[in-house]
């Protein structure tokens, strides 16, 4: 075992800022990418539900 408790783990031998800055940015970017895609899909569905162009197909 490398670590003596949570504080020791978070300190990363004095390099905590660098290590967590790197891992944190990866997590942030992945989170934002997934959220952006989910939002885009929701907007697409909303456009389909009430939007322009549906009349031509459904309304005749």
């Amino acid at each position: 075992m490398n670590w003596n408790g949570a504080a020791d783990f978070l300190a990363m031998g004095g390099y905590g800022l660098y290590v967590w800055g790197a891992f944190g940015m990866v997590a942030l970017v992945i989170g934002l990418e997934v959220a952006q895609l989910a939002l885009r899909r929701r907007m697409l569905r909303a456009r389909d539900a009430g939007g322009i162009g549906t009349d031509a197909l459904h309304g005749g």
Partner: protein
Amino acid sequence: MAILTTHPHPHPLPRSTTNWFAWAAPQRFYPLAGRMVVVFALLAAALAAIGLYIGLVVAPTDAQQGDAYRIIFVHVPAAWMSMVIYVAMAFWAGIGLAFNARLAAMFARALAPTGALMTFLALWTGALWGKPTWGAWWVWDARLTSELILLFLYIGFLSLHAAIDDVRRADRAAAVLALVGVVNVPIIYFSVKWWNTLHQGASVSFSKAPTMATPMLTGMLLMALALWMYCIAVTLVRVRTLMLEREGHTAWARQALEAR
């Protein structure tokens, strides 16, 4: 030969047991891709969980770099993916250009944002690794500069695509850019050999045994696989969204949107 021609097979096989081209039709590929997203996302999560455990808990502190070296578990996977995605993007762009294939062009377009993000992450995590080990966030050496050029290539691809209204013409123009830019990938890869650089050489290569302790190597490879699976999953989600956006007027896309 005569037997074959005079007596046809009593149970003729169905004409297309595996017609792979059929899957290139968006309405066939869309549901398949949806199932693949689940598989790749689960693989990514499982591999990342094991990889993070090995990288942050099991792997020992490095004798020279202390715990700063642990940035390797995200830096190397992101850097590998930035190059792998570029090659994949250029490949699909080339297929789209050569065969006028809609789905291939959509794949190229879907890969670009994820590739750009991986390049950004490689640069960001590299800066955070460079500061404690080299004493500098950034140096203008061959590895770092060619990776920065890769980021500009992704941004150029996306900007050019966005600048052209006709989506099929945008696909073709951006494809040419993607194909020209592919020369940068071997430059990034071999830059640490060809030029004098601060950046350390490859820890893993095809020609020699890895220069890393086993848990470090295992953790890094697991994280690389996890990120690879994530990139496939997120690209499939984006390609499905692009399909609906581009083909929103068709009956199949309308049904797909209403289904869920």
